[in-house]
């Protein structure tokens, strides 16, 4: 188990380096080959030539590539100082870039947005796991019943309806129609109940989509597991049906769900753009949207990096949990 852990951590570290390099490549090398002036795109459209030259110097675009990569990489862990064009700007670690347009480091602008997205993703995950998995298990156990068919029809609609549709529907029914919730985002520091009230609709909307997917996967996996020989063995021992399902079958059903969860959470942490837009949540997704609108390249770069790292961390956690559940994985 320890060897497995070390191997996975090592692999994650390698992946981290690779991700940073790839992101660097996408933002600095590809435009360069394509003949785009990187400094210009970092400054923005209406920039005077002097500012562009300053940025070019600050980013060290004239330096050899390995030096640029190193500075970029170092910035994330140790911070970096942009010098050139007559002034010098320090960007503290973790430095995910500096927006020359808004004249501030990218990371601090994201730090108050990150918790919003994290809360949205985690809260929704709890909901979709509870409802999706139990609906899937029930459907499997009552295959062919009215419940099963009903649940699967709902699941199908959940998968196929776009978030902005369900989101708007929820808003118009619960906020504008029934006036149950405020519909406004309130920071957690200000008021817990306000925050909770503002988050509940985004959670439910986002969870609805994922619960539908998880219910379908759970049902299919469960049905397959229930046909396994070791489930028959468990029954032959004289175990109660609840134990057979709840212990023996559930543990096996969890493995594919876990893999999905790692992927989904990682991706969501990078910003649930649609949900955040629909409910005007000040999360990472909204930041990206604004950055794209304003062509604020450093912010896009910063969010891209954070998203990749979130996926990486989520996968690492899943890998470890995987080994806890399935002993065979530890050997591989």
């Amino acid at each position, binding site marked *: 188990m320890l060897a497995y852990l070390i191997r996975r951590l090592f*692999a994650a570290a*390698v992946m981290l380096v690779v991700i940073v390099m790839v992101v660097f490549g996408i933002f600095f090398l590809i435009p360069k080959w394509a003949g785009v002036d990187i400094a210009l795109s970092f400054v923005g459209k209406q920039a005077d030539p002097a500012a562009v030259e300053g940025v070019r110097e600050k980013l060290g675009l004239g330096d050899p590539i390995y030096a640029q990569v190193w500075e970029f990489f170092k910035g994330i862990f140790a911070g970096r100082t942009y010098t050139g064009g007559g002034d010098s700007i320090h960007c503290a670690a973790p430095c995910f870039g500096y927006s020359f347009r808004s004249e501030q480091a990218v990371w601090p602008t994201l730090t108050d947005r990150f918790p919003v997205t994290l809360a949205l993703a985690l809260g929704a995950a709890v909901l979709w796991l509870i409802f999706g998995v139990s609906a899937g298990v029930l459907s499997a156990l009552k295959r062919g019943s009215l419940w099963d068919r009903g649940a699967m029809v709902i699941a199908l609609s959940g998968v196929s309806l776009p978030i902005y549709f369900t989101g708007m529907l929820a808003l118009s029914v619960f906020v504008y129609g029934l006036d149950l919730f405020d519909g406004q985002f309130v920071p957690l520091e200000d008021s817990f109940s306000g925050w909770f009230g503002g988050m509940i609709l985004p959670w439910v909307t986002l969870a609805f989509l994922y619960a539908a997917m998880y219910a379908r996967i759970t049902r299919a996996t469960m049905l397959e597991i229930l046909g396994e020989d070791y489930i028959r063995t468990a029954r032959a021992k004289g175990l109660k049906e609840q134990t057979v399902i709840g212990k023996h079958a559930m543990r096996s059903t969890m493995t594919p769900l876990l893999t999905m969860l790692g992927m989904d959470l990682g991706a969501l942490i990078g910003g649930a753009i649609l949900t955040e837009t629909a409910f005007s949540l000040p999360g990472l997704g909204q930041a990206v949207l604004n950055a794209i609108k304003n062509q604020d390249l450093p912010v896009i770069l910063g969010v891209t990096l954070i998203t990749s790292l979130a996926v990486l961390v989520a996968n690492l956690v899943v890998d470890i949990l995987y080994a806890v559940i399935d002993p065979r994985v530890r050997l591989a």
Partner: protein
Amino acid sequence: MSDDEKAVKIPAQADGPTEQGATLTEDAAPGEVLLKVTGLQKHFPIKKGLLQRQVGAVHAVDGIDFEVRSGETLGVVGESGCGKSTMGRLITRLLEPTAGKIEFQGKDITHLGVSGMRPLRRDVQMIFQDPYSSLNPRHTIGTIVGAPFKLQGVEPEGGIKKEVQRLLSVVGLNPEHYNRYPHEFSGGQRQRIGIARALALNPRLVVADEPVSALDVSIQAQVVNLLDDLQQELGLTYVIIAHDLSVVRHVSDRIAVMYLGKIVELADRDLLYKSPMHPYTKALMSAVPIPDPRRKNAKSERILLKGDVPSPISPPSGCRFHTRCWKATEVCKTTEPPLIELRPGQQVACHHPENFADQAPQDTVLLTVAKEAAELVADEVLAESAETSAALAAEVAETASEPTASTEAEAEADEAAESAEAVEPAEPAKVEVAEPVEPVTPAKAEAAEAAVAEAAEAAGAAESAKAAKGESAESAESAASAEATDAAGSEGQESNGK
């Protein structure tokens, strides 16, 4: 449906596909070597870690030699993991060998590429184990059986359809079922379809990997009989790979027994089953449950092997069977026994064969593992095996000129010399007993009994001698062995004796 077990009628071969496609080489006359395999190896690398470094290899097939003669059936038996299926895939060149040489009709085919193999695919065909997964469910029987013609670009006289229907009737299926799909057939019928497909291009050699093991008993017999009939009618050569010893005995002329990637014994069927020489062969055969309730309590004849087959990733040193053998001695651990023909038609790789003279008689101290293994073997079996070996030794001692006792040996080495003398004469047996061994006659049995007593004494003596084995004992031993070798008049012995 005509999969009834009526005698299979083979329609005229005259307009068979052979006439059209010019065959690779001339037909081999019956008894000629069709396939020759030397030193064949297949190692599957095990890769680990991020960089996929090779950390080891599964020694699936680890240096085997054999020949398949035209018109015969070579059976290959062994337990799972012995490499028999890998061997089948190597000789049909579905796998690339790691080392060694495969010659088909005198042509080296070891490293032929896909295009180089194409003409050969006509002559070498394979039948697979699972009749459910080896047929494409979306293709009709006609397409499946006719596929080889299309692949090879052969247009049989009268068209593919007519030829396919002929083949279907050859294997006992209704030709009308040309347009049906595999799922409409039972397991036995699907295996017949697989056979029809293999026969389409009139191959010379058919390699069948577990052709009947997925079938029910009553269906097994149908397919076994069909293979039999086809061989007689079409003069096919078979290599039949199976784990079921009774099926293999029924279908084969010669049988190779594999253990951990090696052939441990290769012999004519009757010799192998009547007097197996390799202890593994013996154990394997004794393990087969006998369908006779009156022999239920004849448990004493069964040799139970200890534990499991070791991993083919790091096979045991020396003789690979030494970790489970009840006869294993030091030499088995250190030296790998070569596969040699001890009796005409019976090749064995063993230092201490059953039903034959010991190949390493000076080595009498059992390994501890062997002692443990022997506890599982009934006394009767041990006694019987000792008796047959001793009888042979005695027989040989009678006929061969008595080697003069090594009187020159030093006084301290007396005991050792005695043991060497008692056991050593067995050595020439390998050369002397050229004709098939006769069953032990009563007169000889008496001599045998005496010999057993002697051998037992000798064993005890050897044990103590081994402990005190100084230079003197060694010299005495080598003197005796040198003399024995002289008597035998064979140089080959020497290396074996040491």
